[in-house]
């Protein structure tokens, strides 16, 4: 393992992480819920009366953030090297897997770990391990 010191951005990572933490805090202190994006989005796949507007509001908030940002400053670098067919396959796996697993990087990885939930810690270890393994296979085993 060698650290890519040019890519590593410790300050913005910690500050951005803390801002995400503030969002998580707001959501539990005001709404009493876990800020788990896959669950909030997934709940809209089978909408229940009285359970829709807060979900839509959270999703719209996430979509509005880059729009507001773009009014004041240039958006940070976004580079997607993955091809469309792979992106679609990946999205399907994420859409199905997060629902069976009951959470993603936000619900399990941040909220669940913050609560020291054994389920979330196990889920986080599992998806991190699968992510590391997948990138290893794609970048180091499959000849390009």
């Amino acid at each position: 393992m060698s650290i890519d010191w040019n890519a590593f951005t410790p300050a913005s990572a910690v500050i951005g992480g803390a801002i995400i933490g503030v969002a998580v805090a707001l959501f539990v202190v005001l709404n009493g819920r876990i800020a788990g994006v896959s669950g909030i989005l997934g709940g809209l796949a089978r909408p229940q009366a009285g359970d829709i507007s807060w979900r839509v509001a959270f999703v719209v908030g996430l979509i509005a953030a880059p729009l507001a940002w773009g009014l004041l400053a240039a958006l940070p670098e976004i580079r997607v090297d993955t091809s469309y067919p792979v992106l679609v396959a990946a999205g399907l796996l994420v859409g199905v897997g997060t629902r069976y697993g009951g959470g993603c990087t936000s619900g399990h990885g941040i909220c669940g770990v913050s609560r020291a939930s054994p389920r979330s810690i196990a889920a986080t270890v599992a998806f991190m391990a699968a992510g590391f393994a997948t990138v290893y296979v794609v970048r180091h085993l499959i000849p390009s």
Partner: protein
Amino acid sequence: MYTAASFAAGFVFGLGLLVSGMVNPAKVLGFLDLAGAWDPSLALVMAGAVAVGAAAFAYMKRRTRTLLGAPVLLPTPRRIDRRLILGSLVFGVGWGLAGICPGPALVLAGAGSAKGLAFLAAVIAGNGVFEFLEKRKRVAAGLAPTRSS
């Protein structure tokens, strides 16, 4: 008020993702590439978020109502089962292929990224596949499908 607070939380979450660099799939993949030139940033994003989040959850542990008077609805299951682990492994493979998870997918969509939108559409389709499989399972088990309203 409840809906406005939800919007605010989503908005601040999105800003955090932008500041942290986690909306950039190349950066996320740089973290997941342990054998390559490794970018540890994602670990520090998690650390920053968990430090603040842990304080908030610790504070809410003693309360049954939120500051808005809403009920506190936090998950209670504690069992680590096959469904949790297999689902998380499948999610991890998708995350490793694209470097995108659901939060950043929504931010990418808002940023006007065509690839982000394609990924988000596939996530929503995946949710549909999950709902279909769950419904079929309930029907096969002889249970009435849950009414959706």
